[in-house]
């Protein structure tokens, strides 16, 4: 929300500056009246015009510099958010289970906080399994894992409409060695933010 506030302030300042320094943004009807009036009233002197131009340029320069600073700040925030989301990209499960571990709940708590901080973001949860067992059953198990994560986020106040779930069963392993460490990595729910 804070970011949008800054954006709005900058925008309003910009509009105000333009309104003050130029007649272009006033309505067409007003412009016509000004033209008719200009014959009866003397215009500003050259000195006054030069002063106005200098002030206008200074304001525009300040605005441009502010815009650049804002953009840099936004980029930094986005990078920090991406870095924090990377750590929150996965939760892991026990063999043939879809229950959430304490660690998984903790990560989901942070995921929920991220989603609340970025209300326009949506989340796809991909359920995955290791290669033991049957691939059809594992497709169902992957769906259960993704749904378990989605339900928990819902209890933490995230609108279910922002969460999509998909199961890839054992079809998208992140690791292909026949070790328990590797199988553990493959039994996950992966978070993809959009």
């Amino acid at each position, binding site marked *: 929300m804070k970011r949008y506030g800054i954006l709005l302030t900058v925008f309003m300042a910009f509009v105000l500056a333009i309104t003050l320094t130029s007649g272009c943004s006033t309505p067409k009807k007003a412009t016509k009246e000004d033209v008719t009036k200009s014959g009866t009233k003397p215009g500003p002197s050259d000195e006054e015009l030069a002063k106005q131009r200098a002030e206008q340029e200074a304001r525009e320069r300040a605005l441009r510099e502010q815009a650049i600073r804002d953009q840099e700040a936004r980029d930094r925030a986005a990078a920090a958010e991406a870095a924090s989301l990377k750590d929150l990209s996965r939760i892991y499960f026990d063999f*043939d289970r879809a229950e959430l571990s304490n660690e998984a709940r903790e990560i989901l708590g942070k995921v929920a906080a991220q989603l609340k901080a970025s209300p326009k973001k949506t989340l796809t949860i991909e359920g995955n399994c290791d290669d033991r067992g*049957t691939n*059809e*059953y594992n*497709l*169902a198990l992957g*769906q259960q894992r993704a749904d378990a994560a989605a339900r928990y986020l819902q209890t933490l106040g995230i609108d279910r409409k922002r969460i999509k779930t998909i*199961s890839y069963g054992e079809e998208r392993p992140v690791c292909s060695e026949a070790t328990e460490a590797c199988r553990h990595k493959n039994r996950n729910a992966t978070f993809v933010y959009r």
Partner: protein
Amino acid sequence: MRKKHIVLFFVCILWLVTAAPVAYGKVYINIDSPSAQKFPIAITPFKNMNNASAQESLSPWFADTLGKTLEITGFFNILDRKAFLVDQTKLGISTENIQFPAWTGIGAESLVTGGFTVSGRDLTLECRLFDVVQGKLIVGKRYTGKLEERKEMVVRFAQEILVALTGEKGLFDTKIAFTGKKSGSSEIYYVNFDGTEPATLTNYRSITLSPKWSPDGKQISFLSYKDGAPDLFVMDLNRRTTRKILSTGRLNLPATWSADSRRMLVTSSKDGSEEIYILSISDGRMTRLTNDPSIDVSPTWSPDGKQIAFVSDRGGTPQIYLMDSSGAGVRRLTFEGGYNTSPAWHPRANRIAYEGRAGGTFQVMVLETEGGTPVQLTTNGRSENPAWSPDGRYIAFVSRLGGKSRVCVMNSNGTNVRVIHEGLDAYVSPTWSPHLNFY
């Protein structure tokens, strides 16, 4: 598939029509007997009838090809030609020329003789099957066609031999489809029962799984992520057109077709957890059969359509359950091992093949639906996803052994394991076609 039908213009003539009905009444090989021995059969070199010198090599070729074809079935012991006491090509190939005691003397119960006539590219093939114990002709056929159609003629006569000796034709006109994985994507492939003519059915470069052949032989249903979500598709095999039949944005898995190929059992998580439904293919209407927050998956209809076996983890681990086709009367079938999945209902019996955990790995098991002790059919490596042949005499399955995955076929008693496809990274979910009548 159909091309051969048109090209091979053949004529069959049944000799000694009066003898045929008597001979056909007897089943020489009881395939379904668990103690069935391999049936000893002698195949003589085929007689070069018009002595076309350029075609001498065809004489052993016909005998060898027929022998190899019969051997694939796992029902025959093809006797070694070196043990033969008489040369029927010299004596003659008709009933009056057969020296039956010379064949019973080496342990044969049946004898095949044959003769061929080549004229230009035209081939006439005569084949006879004898019961050497009773000293009589069982079946005789004559085929005419082109020389390059000789393999098909041999397979056709092998089918005749199987009908005469086992009461039913062989599976040479069936195919097995399966998922093959390669370079991170999976496609549907198929291959003939004898391992010939492998081909691909899909090329989506996505995840495509669980092919199920329709009982009319004309369609295959499958699951594909090709449009992003796990949707169900049906491919028309003649037109090679595909249409989407179920898309819910959540998991959808195809399972067994109904006998009339108009409905399909499916698993879908569209209403929450994974439940089993009957999907009417023409109008997409779905009838929900299960109602349980746990996983319900992989349903298979009994041959009469009155019962369904399926996998559920409602008891804490994946096990096979039975229910009435209405969804009522759920009862657990498997209790041994902590992980039993992939049920396949025998096409003619109240028997289920499935994949069960045995000694730290997974093997193909068979269990009667009234319960009892499961029979473990496989022992090597890991064996998964059993699929019955349309006659219930064979099971196709996926074998993982020594880091390699293969599609295999075995006789229903676990013997005669043959590899029908290998070379891809991994295989899953074989499905067997009905008779497609291309032989």
